[in-house]
């Protein structure tokens, strides 16, 4: 019984780890269409942006792209924000690396914190940095400063008053999406099926023995010939995602 309970706990923890690892990195804040950032850099920047969202309830996205396709830069920014952000209140800055152009889109009450001047200063902070990663990081640092000042009331916008209403910006998080409930149940059912069938299979105890090693005379095995011949090898090479310096 102890073994079964232990097995169930282990299985639960494995499942939980699986789900958490999947759920812990669900929101993407840095969208790298131009493939300029390493995955570890994106992950780090995403954590920064997630921290901002948790603290202030404002989503700050950054997108690097090589052109905006058939749509205008502003439309591209708006559509990208809709695609990636769940939060009504937020900001996206898009860097079109191919055309060396910037665009932005502000959603909901985020415009009470991020004025045009604020967005421009964030773009400047990004543009003056040598690396893509460093630029976005600087941009997020500035965003954090604006958000912090916006809440404390210390930040004075060029023209617009601050709104510290926490019912709009900085609202409580919704918690885990309901979509994870069926996923959790599905994983639970799979694990439950495996555990229960494993237990039930023990009702069958009659089977032929595979070998006779239990009847081996102790110390009787002597290896008289041994050869390990190399046949061939395969080498697979995979390019590492790397941090690219800006032109």
């Amino acid at each position, binding site marked *: 019984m102890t073994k079964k309970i232990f097995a169930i706990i282990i299985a*639960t923890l494995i499942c*939980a780890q699986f*789900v*958490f690892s999947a759920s812990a990195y669900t929101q993407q804040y840095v969208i790298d269409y131009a493939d300029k950032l390493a995955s570890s850099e994106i992950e780090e920047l995403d954590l920064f942006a997630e921290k901002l969202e948790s603290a202030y309830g404002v989503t700050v996205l950054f997108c690097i792209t090589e052109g905006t396709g058939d749509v205008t830069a502003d439309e591209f920014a708006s559509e990208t924000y809709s695609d990636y952000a769940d939060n009504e209140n937020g900001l996206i800055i898009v860097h079109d690396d191919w055309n060396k152009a910037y665009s932005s889109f502000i959603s909901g009450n985020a415009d009470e914190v991020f004025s045009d001047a604020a967005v421009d200063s964030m773009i400047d902070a990004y543009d003056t940095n040598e690396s893509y990663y460093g630029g976005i990081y600087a941009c997020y640092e500035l965003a954090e400063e604006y958000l912090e000042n916006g809440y404390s009331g210390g930040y004075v916008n060029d023209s617009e008053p601050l709104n510290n209403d926490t019912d709009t910006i900085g609202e409580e*998080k919704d*918690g*885990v999406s309901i979509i*994870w*409930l069926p996923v*959790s*149940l*599905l*994983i*639970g*059912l*799979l*694990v*439950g*099926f495996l*555990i*229960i069938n494993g*237990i*039930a299979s*023990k*009702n*069958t*105890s*009659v*089977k*032929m*023995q*595979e*070998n*006779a*090693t239990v*009847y*081996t*005379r102790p110390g*009787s*095995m*002597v*290896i*008289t*010939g*041994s*050869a*390990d*011949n*190399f*046949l*061939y*090898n*395969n*080498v*697979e*090479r*995979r*390019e*590492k995602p*790397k941090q690219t310096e800006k032109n």
Partner: protein
Amino acid sequence: MSTILEQKCPCCGGAVEFNTDAQRLKCPYCDTEFDITAMPEDTSNQVEQINWNSQGAQWSAGETDGMSVYACNSCGGEIVADTTTGATTCPYCGNQVVMKGQFSGALKPDLVIPFKLDKKAAKEALKKHISTKKFVPKSFLTDNRLEEIKGVYVPHWLFTCDAVGNATYKAKKVKTWSDENYEYTETSYFDVYRSGNIGFDNIPVDGSTKMPDDLMESVEPFDLSQAVDFNTAYLAGYLADKYDVTAEESMPRANERIRQSIIDSFKETVKGYDEVENQGANMNVANGIYKYALYPVWLLNTKWNGENFTFAMNGQTGKFVGNIPTDKKAVTKASLLLGAGIGAVIYGLMWLIELL
């Protein structure tokens, strides 16, 4: 003086029985049913003249093949058994009898492992075996009946040999490294060869066609160090069969197990690889000798839903085996419940982590 009343079928003369379902008398031979009131009155006081006539039935040729008839020394009753039976019980007086001819001369076993565990232990082991299993149908627990329990000395051939063999394996090594720009995975393949000798002592092979081979191999191993020279006295109180599978017929099974042992044992010496897969093996057996031994096994037969279930217990070590039916509905229900529970816990933990 006792009197006997026997209700006979008016149609065929067979003895009728009271059928509990129909609540009427029923002839089991012609299936005719009668009301109890329709049957004739008790005629036990009437004088009945009975003439016994022999039908003159004789065994036809070949009909007695595989049968032997013995006379019980205690009561003189005839014991009909098959030709492999070596020890049994007289059906009339319950006297334990041993058919000496079955174990004499060339048929005499070299060794016998005496029973160490009695019938009571076998019954308790059966209870424990069933009670410790999960998802057993409830009706099996309540309705299965222990039809028969018998201690049987099962004939086994014991093979001892020095095996000389070789085996080949396909082995794989995986190495990974990276530089500034790339990650590399190198997979190296090897052809591995091993040859050598292994000695085997007393590999048992079931020598009785009556006993399922998988059941007999499942109760292994027996401790042959406790075996003694054969003596018919050990058989008293138990059933015993002489072999009906010869040593020559049993050799292929012993060879099969030896071959697999060589593959498995040599594989243990193939080290330093990430994967090892057997590609084939050859073997020869030298200094092969075999012995004939009787191994003690308790056999327990139960019946449930018209199906027979056979369990076996090693009469020396107590190892108990036997397949038990599984309640598929209970398995499905438990899987769903456990799965839902695990799913809920996972989702709950996700919430907890999210809130923290």
